[in-house]
């Protein structure tokens, strides 16, 4: 599913405050079957933007186009879009309301009118995708789980609807490194299964590790759309948008500045170690 946004404007309205424009004239493309990251400072419009992708918010002007058709073209189409574009919100575990994990994860498929068998299969499949043993977890109350487990159940409850596009808002916030790694792998696996993944994050190491495309927002405007290699060399743009360099890249860049002959464009600790080793070997063989 290709998503494109054309000249989108949006303001929040409220009885008590004058409206403020949250998104200004945004045009962008989210290619299908890729991982796209949306980054930017707090209040830059990231969450507002992704809520347009499945029609939770409607633009004041401009269009959100999915597979060539405006999502608000007719009522049936927006319903169709909501079935196929799943959104995992910030701190999704705060929205739990069912008594056990099975009902929580089955809630979406039930509402889609699936058969009992289909529901059961999708629940088991999605729990497996998030690395939870369904035997062990199905009957437990979601409220008794640890933070990392809760987040994974919350993600499973969206995956169970098998959306074509998975959108996650700050999916690793509040998780320890092990749980964050699991959530990272869920996104990569979902992409590997031929689906589209969009996520919002402030963690530039995560963003640079897994995304194919990055969109940067600053005060409601799109200021960058492209590859990480282009973004990371544009330090002024990064600074203005309240962002920083990924830790791995920053370390490697400092080494390069210190005279080490290496390629700083690496994004995982493993690749950084390999690059450093190769560099030291080159020095040794001279």
């Amino acid at each position: 599913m290709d998503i494109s946004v054309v000249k989108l404007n949006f303001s929040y309205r409220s009885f008590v405050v004058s409206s403020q424009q949250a998104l200004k004239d945004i045009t962008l493309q989210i290619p299908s079957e890729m991982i796209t990251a949306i980054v930017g400072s707090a209040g830059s419009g990231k969450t507002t933007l992704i809520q347009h992708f499945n029609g939770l918010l409607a633009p004041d002007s401009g269009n959100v186009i999915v597979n060539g058709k405006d999502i608000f073209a007719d009522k049936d189409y927006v319903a169709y879009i909501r079935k196929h574009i799943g959104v995992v919100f910030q701190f999704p575990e705060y929205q739990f309301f069912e008594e056990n994990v099975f009902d929580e994860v089955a809630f979406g498929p039930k509402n889609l009118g699936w058969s009992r068998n289909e529901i059961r299969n999708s629940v088991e499949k999605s729990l497996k995708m998030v690395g939870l043993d369904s035997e062990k977890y199905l009957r437990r109350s979601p409220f008794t789980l640890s933070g990392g487990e809760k987040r994974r159940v919350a993600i499973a409850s969206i995956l169970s609807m098998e959306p074509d596009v998975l959108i996650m808002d700050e999916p690793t916030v509040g998780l320890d490194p092990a749980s964050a790694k699991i959530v990272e792998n869920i996104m990569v696996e979902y992409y590997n299964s031929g689906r589209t993944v969009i996520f919002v994050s402030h963690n530039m190491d995560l963003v640079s590790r897994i995304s194919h495309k990055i969109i940067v927002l600053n005060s409601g405007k799109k200021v960058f759309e492209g590859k990480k290699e282009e973004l990371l060399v544009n330090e002024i743009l990064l600074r203005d948008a309240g962002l920083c360099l990924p830790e791995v890249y920053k370390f490697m860049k400092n080494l390069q500045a210190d005279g080490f002959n290496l390629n700083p464009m690496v994004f995982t600790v493993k690749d950084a170690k390999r690059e450093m080793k190769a560099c030291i070997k080159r020095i040794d063989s001279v």
Partner: protein
Amino acid sequence: MLELKNISFSYNKQNQEYEFSLKNVSFCLNRGEKIALMGANGSGKSTLIRCINGLLKPDKGQVIVDGVELVFPDTVLEIRKKVGMVFQNPDNQIVTTSVEREIAFGLENIGTGKREMDFKVQKALEQFHLGKYRTRPPHLLSGGERQRLALASVLVMEPDYLILDEPTSLLDPAGREEILSTITAQAENEKKGVILVTQFPEEALEFDRVVILDSGEIVIQGTPDQVFSETDKIKSVGLDVPVKTELGKYLKELISGY
């Protein structure tokens, strides 16, 4: 000084062979000192900080703040005035309908006079860049802005000790740095004691001490340099060391090998 002496706590008290979420946790926090509290999800961090300001009652052990022991219910209010707490999810503590009222809420409750209150609220609005949102309902702020609001409404009460549960998780790097420097200024200039729960080892590097919990027990504590030099131990409890520490150590090993 804030002292924790042999704190033990269990959520499941009915069960005979219950498991403790905290086992014999002891440490001290001096005024002006900053401690980073780290641990995997479920290691007991949030339980521990809830014991400190009396949101939970420890089964064993003592919490002593500036010589006053936490006793239910006699000294709970006194201790809560001294120990301010910011929760992980700002939505769990925001209760009013506008940014300004949210900051004023605590002051109103302790009977602060109008002029003093207005002055303090104004100062907090400016300090946390919330001035332009003065009358806005908090749910129309972004996640990061709500985190700044939660912090502002606790700091305005001028507690002697600050306990912060991942207060910057929804902020961008620049915003996070700013909050951290606000916290550092609170510790250094106002001589407040700070406990910060964080998942970012990079943040912990800037602190005086790092305390690491695993399964309810303190497994490592010391200065950031001491703690993060034990890479294997840190990883065995499900945490990461700062990227620059890990890569720096690897580089040293590489160079010394040649």
